[in-house]
């Protein structure tokens, strides 16, 4: 259908539209009009992706000068593929309606591992291996060497691409990863480099978060993307953690040992080169004196996305004299390494700030702040000069030099924690140096600064106002949308007591309490008898799950549950988990019924959808607080309090509730789906917890579903499941939660739609 969104003609490739989609597009349009950033929360399964794509593409067509590119960031490869499929549908609709083939280019980009078509390289199992192998075939000096020695192996796909691929742009169309590979095979071009090259002129790019947020990758891939782009972060409820992870460094003894090897290799290579080709080193020296000026020019003229690792000040200076020659630099690295080794020989926990660390390093080994800052850049230059093919082997020394640059650049927002052992195994010495980023805004700042509009969206972003605060930006729109429903297909229940009136809670004091564990078991048992097909149960941590399951086993509860359903358990091993998941789905499919025991914040809670019969109920045992004794977390909380005036408790609750919402949200993946959401902890009944759930869940929690006993919850669940099993047709939704164009345009409906968006 064709919609009119405040004067903008939007093509929407379906015959029906949900009212909230219309409302969503309305808000999105206003954000784009204002050229600002937006935070939008809309439940999953209500067609967020297609609303986003429809509107932004319509906007791009209407105002080609205002918005030139859409950068759509998603988390996983399957999600990327899903976006591309929606896009394909939309593009087909466009060409059908307008009758002309449009010249839009949309493509997905992923790592070499997913795009490589070289027969040998693509057969490697790990992404790192593929990257290393690819690099050893395509690096510029390898190819230069090949001129003198034609026997060296090369990647013919890259050669072919390099020879002709750049002159001929990718023809317009929608390309997913497989399409790119097919195209590459047909032409004999490397799909990865083709995609990387093509994103510069593509209208729509779909790729992973890391291509924008991780400074190391962003520098390679996304540096030259146009300023007038719209950036969308989908499923962005964890974006702060992604930012933090991309800026944090963990150094163990193993890293240092490998780093030592790297430095030795460097030393040897330098010796060799000196004997054969001293001119090369001199040339490098000259280049370093000139400084990093070129990069600086580019950044000033607004061509490049800023790199948070390499702040502006560095670019204006030349590399300091102490590390300018190759030998000096290697010596410098050695000293730095020895210093780190000595720091790791600790008996007790040390926590210090970056300036403290710098002062200490100056006192002990006389390393100044300035050379440290250039460490990362200097190492890159050296690796280039030495023509080392397999970059993958040098990850340890790269990590250390990144650390050096970061620690000397940022005096705020980071902390250094050295722990002699892990908390859980205090007898085993395993020293780790955490260089931990506490401020997610550092990594995302260049994105907000560079791009015209950044949209952060997800099914669970409540409370909305906290995201702008922790990411430090000012949005023009913040809105939360509810799900209009023809029937109440979600049933959140808060079970606060067992049948014997014992309060259910996972809080620390009652964690070992047998009465609580028994009642939790009882809840699962009763639910397993009345809920059909699949149940997913989430625990707060692996340790807690192990304890509870062991205890259930002793009490014979597991045996009783197994009469009703099979039990599968998520473990930390990815292969084991995916096996369990597969069998779980099989058991749901053939009617035996199954329970999946998993952990909030685990793989299952984030990426896996349990549509329809795969998840008829989700039980959340306890409130999934993050492990509060962790020093990194404590440091971060302190930082949040000092810098952003967010109280520790607020942040912890927010974090716990967003994970709880993610977990229970797994069950509802659309309007025809239905599922029970059971919160088994009495603390959920409190207003401060409940109030932080997304609005579309909160709406359905009423006084009658608070603080229930197990029996009461069972009665309610039975009733709900019978209601939901009654036949439900599309006609029942029409006019209420599903609209035709005429219905949408009615005065009454437009009035209703304005109430869907909840502004904050």
């Amino acid at each position, binding site marked *: 259908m064709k919609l009119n969104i405040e004067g903008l003609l939007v093509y929407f490739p379906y015959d029906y539209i949900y009212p909230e989609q219309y409302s969503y597009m309305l808000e999105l349009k206003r954000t784009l009009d204002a050229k600002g950033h937006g935070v939008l929360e809309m439940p999953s399964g209500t067609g967020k992706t297609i609303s986003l794509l429809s509107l932004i593409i319509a906007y791009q067509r209407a105002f080609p000068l205002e918005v030139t590119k859409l950068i759509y960031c998603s988390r996983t490869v399957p999600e990327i593929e899903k976006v591309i499929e929606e896009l394909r549908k939309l593009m087909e609709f466009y060409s059908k309606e307008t009758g002309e083939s449009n010249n839009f280019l949309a493509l997905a980009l992923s790592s070499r591992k997913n795009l490589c078509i070289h027969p040998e390289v693509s057969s490697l199992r790990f992404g790192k291996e593929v990257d290393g192998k690819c690099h050893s075939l395509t690096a510029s000096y390898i190819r230069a060497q090949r001129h003198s020695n034609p026997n060296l192996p090369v990647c013919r796909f890259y050669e072919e691409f390099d020879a002709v691929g750049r002159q001929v742009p990718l023809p317009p169309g929608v390309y997913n990863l497989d399409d790119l590979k097919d195209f590459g095979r047909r032409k004999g071009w490397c799909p990865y480099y083709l995609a990387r090259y093509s994103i510069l002129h593509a209208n729509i790019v779909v790729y992973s978060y890391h291509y924008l947020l991780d400074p190391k990758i962003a520098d390679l891939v996304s540096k030259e993307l146009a300023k007038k782009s719209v950036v969308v972060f989908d499923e962005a409820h964890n974006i702060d953690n992604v930012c933090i992870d991309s800026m944090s460094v963990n150094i163990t003894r193993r890293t240092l040992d490998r780093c030592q090897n790297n430095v030795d290799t460097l030393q040897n290579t330098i010796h060799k080169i000196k004997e054969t080709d001293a001119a090369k080193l001199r040339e490098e020296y000259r280049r370093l004196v000139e400084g990093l000026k070129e990069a600086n020019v580019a950044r000033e003229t607004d061509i490049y996305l800023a790199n948070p690792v390499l702040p502006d000040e560095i670019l204006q200076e030349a590399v300091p004299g102490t590390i300018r020659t190759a030998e000096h630099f290697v010596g410098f690295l050695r000293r730095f390494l020895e210093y780190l080794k000595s720091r790791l020989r600790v008996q007790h926990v040390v926590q210090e700030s970056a300036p403290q660390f710098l002062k200490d390093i100056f006192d002990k080994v006389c390393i100044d702040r300035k050379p440290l800052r250039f460490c990362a850049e200097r190492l890159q230059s050296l690796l280039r000069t030495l023509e080392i093919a397999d970059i993958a082997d040098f990850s340890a020394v790269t990590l250390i030099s990144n650390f050096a640059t970061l620690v000397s650049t940022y005096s705020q927002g980071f902390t250094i924690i050295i722990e002699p052992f892990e908390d859980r195994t205090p007898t085993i010495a395993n020293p780790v140096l955490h260089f931990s980023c506490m401020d997610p805004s550092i990594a995302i700042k260049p994105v907000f600064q560079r791009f015209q509009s950044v949209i952060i969206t997800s099914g669970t972003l409540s409370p909305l106002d906290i995201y702008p605060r922790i990411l430090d930006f000012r949005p023009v729109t913040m809105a939360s949308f509810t799900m209009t429903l023809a029937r*109440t297909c979600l049933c959140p229940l808060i079970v606060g007591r067992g049948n014997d009136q014992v309060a259910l809670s996972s809080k620390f004091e009652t964690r070992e309490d047998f009465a609580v564990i028994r009642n939790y078991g009882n809840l699962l048992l009763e639910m397993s*008898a*009345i*809920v*059909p*097909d699949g149940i997913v149960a989430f625990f707060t941590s692996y340790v807690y799950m192990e304890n509870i399951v062991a205890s259930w086993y002793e009490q014979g509860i597991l045996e009783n549950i197994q*009469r*009703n*359903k099979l039990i599968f358990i998520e473990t930390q091993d990815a292969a084991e988990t995916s096996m369990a998941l597969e069998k779980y789905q099989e058991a*749901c*499919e*053939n*009617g*035996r*019924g199954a329970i999946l025991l998993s952990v909030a914040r685990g793989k299952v809670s984030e990426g896996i959808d349990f549509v*329809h*019969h795969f998840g*008829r109920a989700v039980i959340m045992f306890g409130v999934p607080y993050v492990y509060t004794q962790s020093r990194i977390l404590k440091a971060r909380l302190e930082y949040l309090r000092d810098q952003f005036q967010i109280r520790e408790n607020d942040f912890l609750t927010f974090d716990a509730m967003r994970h709880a919402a993610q977990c229970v949200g797994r069950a509802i993946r659309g309007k025809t789906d239905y599922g029970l959401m059971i919160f088994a902890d009495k603390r959920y009944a409190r207003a401060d917890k409940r109030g932080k759930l997304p609005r579309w869940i909160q709406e359905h929690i*009423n006084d*009658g*579903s608070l603080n*229930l006993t197990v029996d*009461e919850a069972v*009665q*309610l669940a*039975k*009733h709900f*499941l*019978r*209601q*939901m*099993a*009654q*036949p439900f047709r599309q006609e029942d939704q029409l006019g209420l939660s599903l609209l035709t164009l005429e219905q949408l345009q009615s005065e009454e409906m437009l009035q209703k739609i304005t109430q869907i968006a909840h502004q904050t």
Partner: protein
Amino acid sequence: MDEEPERAKRWEGGYERTWEVLKEDESGSLKATVEEILFQSKRKRVIESHEQVRLGMMRHLYVVIDCSRSMEDQDLKPNRLTSTLKLMEAFVDEYFDQNPISQVCLHRNPKKHIAALKKAVDTVCVGEPSLYNSLNQALQSLKHMPGHTSREILIILSSLTTCDPANIYELIKTLKSLKVRVSVIGLSAEVRVCTVLTRETGGLYHVILDESHFKELLMMHVKPPPASSSSECSLIRMGFPQHTVAALTDQDAKPSFSMSHLDSSSGPGLSLGGYFCPQCHAKYTELPVECKVCGLTLVSAPHLARSFHHLFPLQAFVESPLEELQGDRYCQACQGELKDKSIFTCTSCHSVFCVECDVFIHDTLHCCPCCIHSQVTPL
């Protein structure tokens, strides 16, 4: 389903709260609403069942009742099993009344079923059910049935789990290829495998809300399903035995055994008269039956006639308000005064009926008495 009034105390939803639907009128009487409810429920079945489709007349229905642990659940009173069996008795009666030449579980005798059902009340429900095993067993019997009859399985499933020895999806394929129609009535919630099973085999899948809904769903299965166009049509040999009653005065008459009672110890053993198979003269006391000696289907003419209405269902009567009726306000069937606010008019003879007669005509008579009356009876 209106959920709003239940919002306040949802946990009471498990109990029956029929009083909530009742509303007092100005004089404080409940009569009006009760009548309204009854009226609505009466009408519903009549309206639903009338579409002009060809229905299968000869049915072979296999009823499977789940007797697993979950049948002990007391959400139907007194428990699921007892309640189910009680409803099944009514179902069997109704079934044979409407489909005299059909079979349930390959037994023709309704009395036997009811006796068996009564006995089953005492069954202790244990263990897990197996959908696969029950379907397989039913299939073994049904697959030998002739192609012109319908093959149906009705499963009353209380459990939410099934322990199968093999892949059930293979069996579903087999069922589909053999044109067995499987319907399921779930007593607790929607189970995926049943959804697939019924969708693939063209059956119905329903989940009960409460006891009355359960009954309604069961009765839906009384009506024969539409005959699939692919089922073969053939002429069937049938015997119409005469009922011979030996006069008590006749001294030569000797009491004899009925063939149908030979294998069962219960029931009347010896009798004087009976139905005699026209082919082999075996004696039966009850019809319809399949002759044990020569395999001929024995029915009486009224039986056949009763099944006939499935082929030519009576058109639904048109409902109109009482005020529009001109002339005498009398029901043409029962001759009572029309008091309800709606009346029903036959589309062909334009006679007017009250709601009770409308239901009676459609459910039991299957022909409009006024139409027949107006037909010129040949002298």
